């Protein structure tokens, strides 16, 4: 059953005993004056899950100045009679595709008050935003956000997790008797180590690897890297130094590490990663100039060495299957559909066909709200 936006607005408004016009007016980007109420709302509905300085996070993520014209991250709230009933964030992303700039937004931080949970307010808020902006792309990881991606967006099925096994004992634990686990794990790990050496030995690079504290010093090189994709079909977020420094190096929710591949002192590729629970090294972003497969291979080989030294069991990477399989399968990574959904909503019909093609998207954890609730 396909419901129009007008019909849904009418139904939601009626269930709140207001008019559809009043409902529309009640939904707007949050202002500085709303901060206390927003924090209280999030505390009430996220409760013990909030293990960070929430105001620091909110101010880092969103603009509360009330500027409606600039392309900024905003937290939209629905407020009726002074009470916040729900909220949804919008993360601005400047995408590029064949030299075209595409302003896109990624909905995140969706919350609806308990008494309205599951009654369609989240759907309605998403529909308003899809009408407001040219291109929305969304990741569905929770029950509610998956419903929204499935029903309101065009789902693209092959975003998932690439995994590389370094140590087997955690994996084998549930599968073999405990008394033989250490011996079997040792043999399997030896095999994995030999395979890794064999795969990575031909992937050495003449450049130098160095940890990066920030990207500002590499801004021109980064621009050259992103510009190398100008004539390609990739739809990707423009990775400026300002964006990477904000997204990763000044992130109040998580500490990220950046690894640069430098050729004659110039940045030619980089990886951003973090270590989860001392067991997983997750690659959040991996980037090199267009066609520089050797740069990506060298970075991957270096990340596997870092993961080994950190004693983690698994290296993971969130990305589309078709985009990355030529690089990752020869390394020994395997693809797993982890149930996360990626979908897009496009207003421009001319662009639609291209934007709805999954193999064209270059999506990594750089584009997701991977810190999560």
């Amino acid at each position, binding site marked *: 059953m396909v*419901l129009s936006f007008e019909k849904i607005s009418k139904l939601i408004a009626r269930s709140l005993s207001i008019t559809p016009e009043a409902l529309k007016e009640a939904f707007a980007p949050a202002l500085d004056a709303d901060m206390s109420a927003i924090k209280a709302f999030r505390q009430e509905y996220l409760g013990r899950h909030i293990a960070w300085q929430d105001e620091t996070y909110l101010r880092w993520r969103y603009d509360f100045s009330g500027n409606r014209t600039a392309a900024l991250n905003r937290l939209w709230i629905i407020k009726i009679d002074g009470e916040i009933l729900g909220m949804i964030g919008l993360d601005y992303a400047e995408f590029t595709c064949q030299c075209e700039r595409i302003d896109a937004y990624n909905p995140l931080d969706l919350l609806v008050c308990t008494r309205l949970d599951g009654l369609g307010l989240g759907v309605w808020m998403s529909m308003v935003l899809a009408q407001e902006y040219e291109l929305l792309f969304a990741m569905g990881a929770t029950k509610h956000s998956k419903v929204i991606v499935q029903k309101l967006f065009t789902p693209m099925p092959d975003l998932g997790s690439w995994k590389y096994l370094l140590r087997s004992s955690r994996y084998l634990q549930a599968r073999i008797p405990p008394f033989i686990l250490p011996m079997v794990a040792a043999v399997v790990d030896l095999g994995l180590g030999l395979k890794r050496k064999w795969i990575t030995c031909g992937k050495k690079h003449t450049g130098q690897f160095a940890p990066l504290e920030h990207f500002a010093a590499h801004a021109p090189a980064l621009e050259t890297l992103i510009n190398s994709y100008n004539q390609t079909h990739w739809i990707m977020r423009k990775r400026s130094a300002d964006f990477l420094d904000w997204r990763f190096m000044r992130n109040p929710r998580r500490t990220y590490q950046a690894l640069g591949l430098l050729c004659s002192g110039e940045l030619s590729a980089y990886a951003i990663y973090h270590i989860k629970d001392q067991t997983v090294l997750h690659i959040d972003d991996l980037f090199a100039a267009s066609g520089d497969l050797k740069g990506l291979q060298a970075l991957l080989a270096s990340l596997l060495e870092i993961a080994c030294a950190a004693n983690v069991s698994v290296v993971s990477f969130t990305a589309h299957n078709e985009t990355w399989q030529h690089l990752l399968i020869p390394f020994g990574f395997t693809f797993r559909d982890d149930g996360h959904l990626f979908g897009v909503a496009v207003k421009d019909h001319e662009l639609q066909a291209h934007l709805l093609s999954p193999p064209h998207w270059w999506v990594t954890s750089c584009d997701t709200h991977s810190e999560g609730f």
Partner: protein
Amino acid sequence: MNQAEALTLIAEIFEAPDTLTPATLKDNVRGWDSMGVLSLMAEFDDRFSILLSQPQLEQMKSVDDILQILRDHGHISA
């Protein structure tokens, strides 16, 4: 309509396989999500002029709770 026809209608609204019984719980109906609730509200409004309220929607835990609303409004014959 009779109960069997009402069950078919509910299955259509939730885009669920036609295997619903009055005892089927909300959690076991795949399409009984926020979008499904909106479809239910729209269908009841358009077809039966029943305005489902927020408390009524909150209290629905099984297919029989939906049937009961139809019975209360005289839309299901014995």
